[in-house]
């Protein structure tokens, strides 16, 4: 067999979760990291505001308070054992990052500085608390850089610009992956005892998104195609402050530092929706409030946008605390945040759902927590579930660090006691077939045209506010898009760096995942966190306090449900 590699462990994706897992693994067992981008290009690098951990450097704080906020923020759909573990381990992992060199912003006495963030409170909801540890407004950039630097120090084997196209799972055992070396176009089989999936999110399903062009949910869709379930796919977060029309994120840290939101009448409209936390209410509530304001004609100029006002912070504080967003606003809008209002609108931001895992990041095959042997997932592509129905700001960085590390640690122990399971006889066949079909297409459809249609329709019918009829309509649209996808023709039929071909493959992933979102959302006849059904506007704990599992069986998507783990925080009405 040509292009065959054998490693005890293979990590797919080189953002925060992948690099954290790689660091644990590569010190102890032969490990390869495969990434479709150079690691420093990963989307972790765009995270701005901070990483939440109850260090208590500026005021009293406890990880139990952090856990409560996470559970309440998630509208009680989070599994509370996972949340406890994450909030507890967050503290040590932040110190570990500091020891690894992360240049956090500092307090006058030299400790890690912390600031308030949406939904993070003291004493179980009493008032905002300073919990977000940060490095100016480039916290994600510094996490990505620091982890990549530690990987260099530990001589991790990187396969840069190798895009994984299939995960070899058979008989509930993971045996490796198939990847294309983008530069040469050659397929490579990686035989492994353990595979850790860490490929991030899939915001490119929607028209307006903060996500990178590469956030196409690759491994999430591949897992689905291998007959495994996905969890809670209907819960997709829309961040309230994306730059108008572009979707580029303006960090919630701006509001953490004191910025306010204004509607078209110049009102602080959030006072009506969240009297205690106001502009620092969780993202789902702010985005939904914006939707209501737009419908009441109170967007700016009666349109679909609002203003973020940071002017009163003063130029010095803006430059020190928010230099990158100042740069974005200047570059893309030609505005000066110290003098001008910033036009913003909700932007598709984060998938709470994904590949179901247990507390050690092992991928689950069913609702009774049976793990797939040798397969792990961590970060946004996974669903533990710590974020429940709505993720709190800063908790994505906590998630990738804590669960990336746990995946790595568990996989080390696993591979030490495991043998290599045999590869299937022709491991590359599925990928070869898929690529050959796309390369030989002769229809009249283009990937770009179909993708634009998908993104527009998902935005209109399956985003912040959903309704049964709209979701049914979207289901039909998706069937039509799938049909048209079979008639796609490519202009580039070469081997080397054929990014048009890879965009076509990625569009197939977006299509699969959009369908899981729509089918899961249509079934969930209630409103919870980021999933809001106009026809079922109340949360319904009696029927729906449970996780959705969705899998493809003989071509059809089938749903099943799993109870939520509730320990100390009983569901209450969610008010801020």
């Amino acid at each position, binding site marked *: 067999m040509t292009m065959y590699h054998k490693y005890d462990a293979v990590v797919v994706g080189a953002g925060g979760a992948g690099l954290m897992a790689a660091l644990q693994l590569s010190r102890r067992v032969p490990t390869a990291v495969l990434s479709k981008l150079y690691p420093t*290009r990963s989307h972790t690098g765009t995270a701005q505001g901070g990483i939440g951990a109850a260090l208590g450097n500026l005021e009293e704080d406890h990880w139990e308070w952090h856990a409560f906020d996470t559970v309440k923020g998630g509208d009680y759909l989070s599994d509370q054992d996972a949340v406890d573990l994450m909030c507890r381990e967050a503290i040590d992992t932040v110190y570990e990052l500091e020891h690894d060199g992360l240049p956090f912003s500092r307090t006058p006495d030299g400790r890690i500085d912390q600031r308030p963030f949406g939904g993070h409170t003291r004493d179980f909801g009493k008032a905002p608390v300073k919990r977000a540890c940060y490095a100016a407004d480039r916290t994600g950039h510094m996490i990505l850089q620091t982890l990549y630097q530690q990987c260099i120090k530990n001589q991790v084997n990187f396969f840069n610009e190798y895009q994984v196209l299939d995960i070899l799972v058979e008989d509930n055992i993971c045996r490796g992956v198939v990847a294309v070396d983008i530069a040469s176009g050659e397929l490579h089989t990686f035989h492994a005892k353990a595979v850790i999936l860490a490929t991030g999110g899939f915001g490119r399903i929607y028209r307006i998104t903060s996500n990178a062009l590469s956030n196409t949910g690759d491994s999430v869709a591949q897992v689905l195609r291998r007959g495994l379930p996905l969890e809670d796919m209907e819960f997709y977060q829309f961040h309230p402050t994306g730059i108008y029309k572009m979707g580029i994120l303006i960090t919630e840290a701006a509001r953490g530092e004191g910025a306010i939101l204004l509607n078209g009448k110049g009102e602080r409209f959030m006072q009506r929706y969240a009297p205690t936390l106001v502009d620092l209410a969780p993202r789902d509530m702010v985005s939904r409030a914006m939707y209501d304001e737009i419908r009441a004609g109170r967007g700016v100029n009666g349109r679909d946008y609002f203003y973020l006002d940071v002017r009163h912070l003063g130029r010095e504080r803006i430059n020190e605390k928010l230099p990158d967003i100042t740069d974005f606003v200047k570059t893309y809008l030609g505005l000066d945040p110290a003098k001008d209002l910033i036009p913003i609108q909700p932007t598709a931001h984060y998938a709470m759902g994904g590949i179901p895992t247990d507390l050690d990041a092992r991928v689950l095959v069913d609702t009774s927590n049976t793990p797939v042997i040798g397969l792990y997932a961590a970060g946004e592509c996974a669903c533990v579930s710590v974020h429940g129905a709505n993720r709190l700001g800063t908790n994505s960085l906590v998630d990738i660090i804590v669960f990336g590390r746990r995946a790595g640690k568990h996989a080390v122990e696993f591979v030490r006691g495991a043998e290599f399971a045999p590869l299937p006889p022709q491991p590359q066949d599925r990928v070869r077939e898929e690529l050959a079909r796309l390369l030989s297409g002769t229809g009249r459809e283009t990937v770009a045209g179909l993708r634009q249609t998908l993104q527009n329709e998902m935005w209109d019918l399956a985003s912040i506010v959903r309704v049964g009829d709209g979701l049914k309509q979207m289901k039909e649209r998706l069937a039509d898009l799938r049909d048209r996808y079979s008639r796609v023709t490519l202009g*580039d039929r070469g081997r080397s760096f054929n990014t048009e071909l890879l965009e076509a493959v990625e569009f197939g992933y977006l299509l699969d995942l959009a369908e899981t979102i729509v089918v899961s959302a249509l079934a969930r006849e209630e409103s919870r966190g980021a999933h809001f059904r106009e026809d079922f506007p109340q949360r319904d704990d009696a029927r729906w306090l449970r996780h959705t599992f969705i899998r493809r069986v003989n071509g059809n998507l089938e749903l099943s449900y799993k109870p939520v783990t509730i320990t100390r925080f009983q569901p209450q009405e969610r008010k801020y």
Partner: protein
Amino acid sequence: MLVHFRIRRFNPEKDPKPYWAEYDVELEPTDRVLDGLNAIKWYQDGSLTYRRSCAHGICGSDAVRVNGRNRLACKLLIKDVGNRIEIEPLLGFRVIKDLVVDMEPFFAKYRSVKPYLINDDVPPLTERRQSPEQRAAFDDTTKCILCAACTTACPPFWTNPDFLGPAALVAAHRFIFDSRDQATQERLELINGRDGVWRCRTVFNCTEACPREIQVTKAIGELKRALLYNRV
């Protein structure tokens, strides 16, 4: 507005040599140059090849030469370039296809300056202390996104590809001036060699090219002074 693109293209699989391809695209003045590239790839010629990811100047994928200057295609608006845009790959690296160049030599230089914190003391139970002033000493150089715009704009690098180049020196600065790092002397020696910091001729092209507005030449100057006076 109608924008005319001239793009340097080369696919070693089939082209005997590089050539210029021309495209006309209808764009908004506030669109990014990257939006123009995407419009060409998506609706005119799918074989046009370039790297891109975040599309807002953070991931560092899409550094290219635009009208003779190194820029991130996603951080440059059409209205700031005009309606005639010429795009070429970065200079000094092998072209893999069209605007995609081989970045391995660039990352090899980055790795050569030991770009990671070295501190062999047993860490405390909480954070290592660092004052805001100590933190400020290397703030600027932590912004680097490794896009290679600076290094490939540097005339000494063009004439001597073995020169470490500004990006690797920025990485060295980031750790040499970090109060927590203990490998200052080791790193100073690394950049003091034949192909190190003294190749810099203070042309300022790097500072001009940096999409993160890092004062690259200033940082290199601080490294030179650290070597001359043996003081950080």
